[in-house]
């Protein structure tokens, strides 16, 4: 039985179960139909031209965890930001883990989607926002919708600034091997609200895991979102992350994506502008090796005037790694005075590494400033030589130059402990000791 059929038959069992999913019967029924029709995307689709899911979907993944697993703090400590006080929503094999988590309902709601679905007082928010911005015709998003049951739920009321960052962490363990995890996150920022979020997916098993996560984010007027995705999973884990952000007037959404790990990672990051004068920022560092594969698909839909978007993605590909970047900017004819910038720089470190990039502009308005730039190259031999003449060994020199190449992305990271951690990860990856803090 192939994975599509397995999932379709699991759906019947899932649908029959009692649980929070009961509340979403209509949405889920419509979604499973879309998935049944389309199946997993193939390379024939323009959006998946460079990304094949064939190997991944050959695995036999299971939807249901066999047992609930309790993790000791020591086992997972390295994966949780410790040196800063945070709210935490932690899931183990798709099940909420209360012991590792720290949620709140004090002024803001940082809790579980399952709770929000079942409790009456959250019903208006769910009704207004759930599945409103996620692309209904995208088969993998539809698959996630069909299996929606659990995930993070964050609601920040008007004028509220969340004082500490929120960590959303998903662990996969070897007690429940070969799981397909499909968390669904809903994040709503009301007027003038502010929040910082760090999301991470971590596999603790040497078996294959497959995460298909969908996040919907709504930033109302003047809301500020600062979101960090740390993707440093082991070589057996595959991740498909679809994030949809709907922005209202004067809101600013920033998303940083750090892709260092995983076997196959696909990021679909979509910004939709609903009103004028909006700012969107997306930045990323990709640093991969071995046979790793990372694909960034971004979309900024400028539909209203006087908005801005900034994109900056750096990629460093070693050994047999493959990278894909597809950045799409659409400027509708109403969206006059739009400023949209896009930058994608890549370094290929080895002969077997490859990169496919497609920066795409679709512009229907005349009074706009849009530009995109894209480069593929190597480290500057002269700079390398210069450092060597100053007594810095070649390996360190390469490390330093690569670090410098990626560094400007880190400058806009607002949480110090995230910055430190990323610094350390980059240094480890490059096999050098950077020897200074930023």
């Amino acid at each position, binding site marked *: 039985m192939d994975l599509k059929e397995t999932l379709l038959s699991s759906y019947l069992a899932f649908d029959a179960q009692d649980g929070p999913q009961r509340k979403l019967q209509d949405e889920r029924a419509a979604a499973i139909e879309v998935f049944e029709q389309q199946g997993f995307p193939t390379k024939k689709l*323009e959006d998946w031209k460079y990304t094949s899911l064939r190997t991944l979907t050959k695995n036999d993944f299971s939807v249901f965890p066999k047992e609930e697993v309790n993790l000791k703090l020591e086992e997972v400590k390295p994966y949780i930001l410790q040196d800063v006080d945070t709210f935490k929503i932690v899931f183990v094999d798709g099940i909420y883990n209360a012991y590792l988590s720290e949620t709140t309902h004090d002024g803001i709601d940082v809790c579980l989607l399952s709770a929000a679905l079942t409790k009456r007082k959250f019903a208006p928010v769910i009704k207004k926002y759930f599945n409103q911005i996620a692309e209904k015709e995208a088969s993998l998003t539809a698959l996630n919708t069909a299996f929606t049951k659990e995930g993070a739920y964050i609601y920040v009321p008007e004028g509220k600034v969340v004082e500490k960052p929120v960590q959303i962490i998903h662990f996969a363990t070897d007690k429940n091997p070969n799981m397909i995890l499909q968390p669904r996150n809903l994040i709503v920022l009301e007027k003038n609200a502010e929040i910082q979020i760090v999301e991470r997916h971590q596999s603790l098993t040497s078996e294959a895991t497959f995460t298909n996560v969908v996040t919907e984010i709504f930033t109302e007027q003047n809301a500020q979102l600062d979101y960090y995705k740390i993707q440093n999973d082991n070589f057996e884990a595959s991740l498909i992350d679809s994030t949809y952000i709907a922005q209202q007037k004067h809101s600013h959404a920033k998303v940083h994506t750090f892709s260092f790990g995983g076997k196959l990672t696909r990021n679909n990051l979509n910004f939709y502008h609903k009103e004028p004068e909006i700012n969107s920022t997306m930045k990323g560092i990709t640093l991969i090796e071995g046979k790793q594969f990372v694909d960034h698909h971004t979309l900024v839909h400028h539909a209203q005037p006087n908005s801005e978007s900034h994109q900056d993605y750096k990629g460093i590909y070693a050994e047999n790694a493959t990278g894909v970047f597809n950045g799409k900017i659409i400027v509708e*004819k109403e969206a*006059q005075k739009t400023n949209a910038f896009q930058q994608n720089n*890549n370094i*290929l*470190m*080895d*002969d*077997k*590494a*490859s*990169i*496919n*990039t*497609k*920066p*795409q*502009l*679709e*512009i*229907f*308005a*005349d*009074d*706009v*400033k*849009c*530009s*995109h*730039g*894209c*480069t*593929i*190259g*190597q480290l500057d031999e002269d700079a390398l030589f210069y450092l060597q003449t100053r007594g810095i060994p070649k390996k360190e020199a390469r490390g330093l130059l690569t670090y410098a190449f990626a560094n400007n992305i880190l400058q806009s990271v607002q949480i110090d402990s995230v910055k430190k951690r990323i610094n350390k990860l980059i240094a480890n990856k490059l096999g050098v000791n950077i020897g200074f803090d930023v």
Partner: protein
Amino acid sequence: MAYTEEELKKELETKEYEYGFYTDIESDTFPIGLNEDVIRAISARKNEPHWMLKWRLDAYEKFQQMEEPDWANVTYPKPKLQEIAYYSAPKSQVKYDSLDEVDPELLKTFEKLGISLEEQKKLAGVAVDIVMDSVSVATTFKDTLAEKGIIFCSISEAIQEHPELVQKYIGSVIPRTDNYFAALNSAVFSDGSFCYIPKGVHCPMELSTYFRINQAGTGQFERTLVIADEGSYVSYLEGCTAPARDENQLHAAVVELIALDDAEIKYSTVQNWFPGDKDGKGGVFNFVTKRGICHERSKISWTQVETGSAVTWKYPSCILKGNDSIGEFYSIALTNNYQQADTGTKMIHLGKRTKSTIISKGISAGHSQNSYRGLVKVGANAKNARNFSQCDSLLMGNKCGAHTFPYIEAKSKTAKIEHEATTSKIGEDQIFYCNQRGIDTEKAIALIVNGFSKEVLNKLPMEFAVEAQKLLEISLEGSVG
């Protein structure tokens, strides 16, 4: 009084196609329809050898299994291939020794286009192989070229007289199965130009062909083959204008360039087919496949100025097979009213130290859609390949669109690739500056558009550059703010 944007727009809309006239020459046209018999008839009419007919029939067989592509960013009613006449030739098939013998009607046509043969002969020393509807009717300067051993004739003539060259190279760069329109062209091509430059010969003049669709309802399927043997050089010009007509006309040409070791081919095009009127009615469908292959240390340079056609679908490409070979692509695409253009290039780097440059300038006005679609591909063996691409778009008004779809695929760590694109409009301050120096808005826009396009215009041969500049001005006349 200040020249307002409204006025500009109005003028632009009412600007009719300048070259919209129709030459009355008796012609010999096949009944409409496409089938094996038509292909046999075309081949028989041209007295082609058996291998050529077989080649056409094979192409037709493959064509029947193919589907019309729809990935391009254009929408148009699919041409009904069964309602086209596949062959049309002026009846008087005599070859002329001098221009005096040419049908005066025909000469008038060219005069209206501002390219009178005499003038060109005198001024530029251009040998013109005029293709009027599908058959060559006048070839000049042939003797001068023959002295150097250069073959420049119609492709039907080449099939008769140089079958070994045609057989060796036709379809070698663009195989018959390459795409839907290339397959169609391979089956039914009626005529085109053939050019061979022998080893080490530097072609002393610009070779030029003017294409013209003339008979109502005839699709034109040109086939051009240019071969530059080792160490030779040729600059080839291709330009076209077509009379105004209401029904859409299909133009599916195939151009193949072969640059052998150390050779250089410069191929320039000015395309000004009828773009349809201001409501988007009529106009030519221009679905062209152009590709060149570069052997060791050779160079192919494509330059194009695209101002015409209702729908353009065209990607002049280079396969950089030989080490140290160079590919260049310089393009201006201007769309107005309801025109749609999806154009760009493919640079396939296979050899070591291969270089390519892409400069594309898109200008969209009215309700038009203008897309750049390009591919830069660096194979694993293409060590130290280098590419630079720049795609700039200029928008006039908020009813048009400019799109960029660059595909970049690198498989070599030594590749250096740069791509940049910008989209903007003509700055109000730029126009204001010109105004205050006494330059009216219309002239200012022409000035700015010309400046915007300069990098490409500079690459055109002298005579062509003048014409192209004029064409840009005409196409945007009274133009826009």
